[in-house]
């Protein structure tokens, strides 16, 4: 059994990613930057106070009790998932700045980046945090964020 494992419901993560993709696609289709603001707020809250993320709350209190999606419980570390969400929230914030500064092409392009990364994570299970850490480390940059503290036993 891996050390320091926490049980993470991967269905909740996937529902969160799917909701992000859906709302951002709707924001673009309806040309509604306020929907981007809404998603960014949900992502920031979900990153800083993981239990209060709106999409995860909807999953926990509505989707799961209704049995629409079956929970997939796995031993996992939630921190890399929160880190990835934080990166997404940051890019989305830049997107909002661009959208309200009269740069719609740049703004929607940045929203597209968040959608693409969420889709790659949702459909391919690619760990963006692992990719970033490794690419930095092989260039001699050893990032030492709290959630990247070295733990042996991989």
């Amino acid at each position, binding site marked *: 059994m*891996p050390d320091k494992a926490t049980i993470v419901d991967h269905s909740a993560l996937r529902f969160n990613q799917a909701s992000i993709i859906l709302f951002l*696609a709707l924001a673009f*289709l309806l040309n509604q930057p306020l929907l981007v603001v809404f998603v960014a707020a949900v992502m920031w809250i979900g990153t800083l106070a993981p239990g209060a993320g709106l999409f995860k709350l909807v999953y926990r209190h509505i989707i799961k009790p209704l049995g629409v999606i079956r929970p997939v419980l796995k031993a996992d570390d939630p921190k*890399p998932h929160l880190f990835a969400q934080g990166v997404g929230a940051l890019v989305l914030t830049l997107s909002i700045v661009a959208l309200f500064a009269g740069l719609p092409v740049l703004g929607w392009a940045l929203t597209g980046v968040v959608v693409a990364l969420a889709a*790659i994570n949702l459909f391919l299970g690619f*760990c963006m945090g692992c990719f970033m850490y*490794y690419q930095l480390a092989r260039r001699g940059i050893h990032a030492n964020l709290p959630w990247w503290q070295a733990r042996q036993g991989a």
Partner: protein
Amino acid sequence: MLERTLWLATFVLLLTGGVLLWRRYLEQQTKRLAFAQVPTELAALPLASGPAVLYFTTATCAQCRFQQTPALAAVQQQRSALQVLKLDAVEHQRLADTYHIMTVPTTVVLDGQRRPVAINHGLASADRLLAQLDRASE
């Protein structure tokens, strides 16, 4: 609305096409490596004959610890003779570069002649690894 729908459809198509092309490129890269000489760094590793898996990881990779390591353990339960060699991708950078490792976890499935049959960039499930090991044994 119609114009934006078309833009969105184009985006989805480009993203899907990009992923498919990328996968095709990685498959071709693995085939090229299979026909190349066995890297000297690999020859120096303590591997007996038979199929093997090179497991590239880093000390900070949570996905490795919590998902890839248990998946490999499940594979080893079914293939007791399988050798799994865990390597730190930063410490073994030359070998990592040889196999074009771009992230962790990455698993390189080798046949008995040390030729790569598959390279999984990112998490690989036990079922996927077992299917690749079947190909390595053919």
